[in-house]
């Protein structure tokens, strides 16, 4: 269907973009709900546990995660600037902001990997305790979404470079940007309840 985008007249494109935007929003909402289910599970298990973290379990480090969070939120800012640049036809700037976003997103994933390795060395693993199961499930699900997001950004950057998007027709970019902000918002929630709330 995407190949029809250039063959539609403006009115038709507008309409299709409206539909796709709404559909994409609904998709993001249902994705939020998957996270909220796992968050509920975590909150329930945590409040039912006599002590948290459970005895003998080394929790994740707040400061490292804090740095990682700044990286991720920074990538949200760069994404915003990228979109602004595109809308004002500043394609070179757009390119650099996008690269920055992709870079920061990858750094976040790298940071997660390091964090996971540290925890595994402390014997906090996915399977060993309900702290592990909650922590790795939530951050893992989120990390998976970030990975998809980075791929999405790479694809969309590629498409921009080959001229798929024009100043008035750039739904793919909008979707990627929305998805990336969604990933950021989820992280705000996860960071608060997994790290900040002791």
């Amino acid at each position: 269907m995407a190949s029809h985008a250039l063959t539609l007249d403006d009115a038709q494109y507008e309409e299709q973009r409206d539909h796709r935007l709404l559909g994409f929003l609904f998709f993001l909402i249902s994705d939020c709900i998957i996270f909220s289910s796992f968050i509920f599970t975590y909150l329930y298990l945590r409040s039912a546990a006599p002590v948290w973290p459970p005895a003998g379990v080394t929790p994740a480090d707040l400061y490292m995660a804090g740095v990682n969070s700044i990286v991720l939120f920074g990538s949200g800012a760069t994404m915003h600037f990228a979109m602004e640049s595109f809308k004002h036809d500043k394609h070179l700037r757009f390119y650099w902001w996008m690269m920055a976003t992709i870079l920061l997103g990858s750094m976040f994933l790298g940071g997660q990997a390091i964090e996971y390795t540290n925890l595994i060395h402390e014997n906090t693993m996915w399977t060993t305790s309900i702290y592990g199961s909650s922590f790795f499930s939530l951050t893992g699900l989120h990390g998976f979404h970030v990975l998809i997001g980075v791929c999405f950004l790479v694809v969309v950057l590629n498409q921009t470079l080959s001229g798929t998007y024009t100043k008035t027709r750039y739904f793919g970019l909008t979707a990627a940007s929305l998805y990336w902000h969604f990933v950021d918002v989820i992280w705000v929630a996860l960071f608060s309840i997994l790290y900040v709330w002791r």
Partner: protein
Amino acid sequence: MAVVEVSHATSDHIHPPPETFVQKYVFSFDHKVIAVQYFITTGLFFVLAGLLAELMRAQLAGPNNHVLSVTMYNQAYSVHGSAMVWLVIIPVLTGAFGNLIMPLQIGARDVAFPWLNMFSFWLFPPAGILLFGSFLLGAPEAGWTEYPPISLQEPAGTSMWCAAIFLVGVSSTITGLNFLVTIIKMRAPGMTWTRMPLFVWATAVTAFLSFIATANLSAALLALFIERTFNVPYYDPSRGGSPVVWQHVFWFYSHPAVYIMVLPAFGIISEIIPTFARRPIFGYKAIAYSSTAIGLMSFMVWAHHMFTSGLAQWVQLPFMILTMAIAVPTGVKVFSWVATLWAGKIRLASPLLFVLGFLSTFTFGGITGIFLASVPADIHEHATYFVVAHLHYVLFGGSVFGIFAGLYYWWPKMTGRMLDEGLAKLHFWTMFISFNATFLPMHWIGLFGMPRRVATYDPVYGDTNLFISISAFVLGASMLIFAYNALRSARRGELAGPNPWGARTLEWMIPSPPPYYNFDRIPIVLAAPYDYGQPLPYREVAPEYLAAVPRF
């Protein structure tokens, strides 16, 4: 082929006509073809799940039978329940009826995302294969609810069950958002929300429930699968997990799910009564707003399935109150439907007969639901045959009767041919009587001591169970009447024409079966469709369709 006049007033464009066999019938974008695909697949699963039920009833015909081993019996009721909920009722009401009728009723050429529509459908046969295939590796035994910890201990078939239902969940979510975008954005010019047919209202609320609630099921299944496969603790109490968490997350989906299973049936009822009573639906706004209220409230009542699970009293109270409250809008709808019959000019054709059957059995089921809403009463009734009776009165008496009403109503539109009325009436009466004979006695034995999910039972319930089993076989056999009628219609059914029932919604303003592009021109809508006696409120519809005269 007629020239398709694509008007630019509403950015009207249609995907190009399909040419090859594969494009036309296998990987079609056309919502009508996808609907037929759903009908055929859900029909097949209905037969399979129904056969499982008959096997179960054969085992239960006597208190200590060995028609099935205990393990096979447990597997039978688990797969029966799972298949009926996820492979039959939800897909047929959303994927089949929703796809077939909703775009036509809003005057659209297709849904918002036809490719996603096709993708949604094709997730569905693999899901069915996985679910029934689980018998090969040890099908799940703990019912369609699969509570841990026992579901953690079951063999590999349970993981197949998780995967199957996950696929159905993805399909359901996509269909839901597809339909809601379609209804919000693609209604014909002039069709405001209060001029929409009530089936579209029902589909809209159902679509909303589908993509919001199903995500919870996906999360729960994912967690169960991960715990079983990778030993990650969520639900296992010996490792700090909690079985009650599964119950919360599962029921947070499954209660809206039962409304997904019944709201479209409500929509079908709302379409059929005005057509055959030939007067406006009574209380259009009340019905539309009640449907919305029911949809929203359905998210607030889930723990009424958990009253014996050890919840604190202060938690149980609000759920009890909200569950009782949700009965009020439901009652408003039943009363409105009955009031539509008042002062009508009623033609008692087969679709209306099934509707009347629905009204009788669903009302009964709704009332037993109230018995279950009260916490003290529920404590006695929970997990007994009283609940089995209740759920079948609302899901079979409600949804299945609604499905057959819709099938008999829209068959001429879908196929261009009529079904035989005599056979239809025979089907109805056999089904209605044997249905009540099967499920009514279950209330009794449940209240007096027969639990659920047992392959053998105290002989004191033997006679009643034998009676139920015999009635159940008659109920199953009654479906053959419909099958025969369907086949006969295909070969020598009377040609239907565009509007055999003289109805007023847009799907009847086009030929039967409709062309791939649905409408020559997108109609313009001036009023709600149910004002029998007034001229039809449409412009841009060819005059030959505006007659709307019934056959009898």
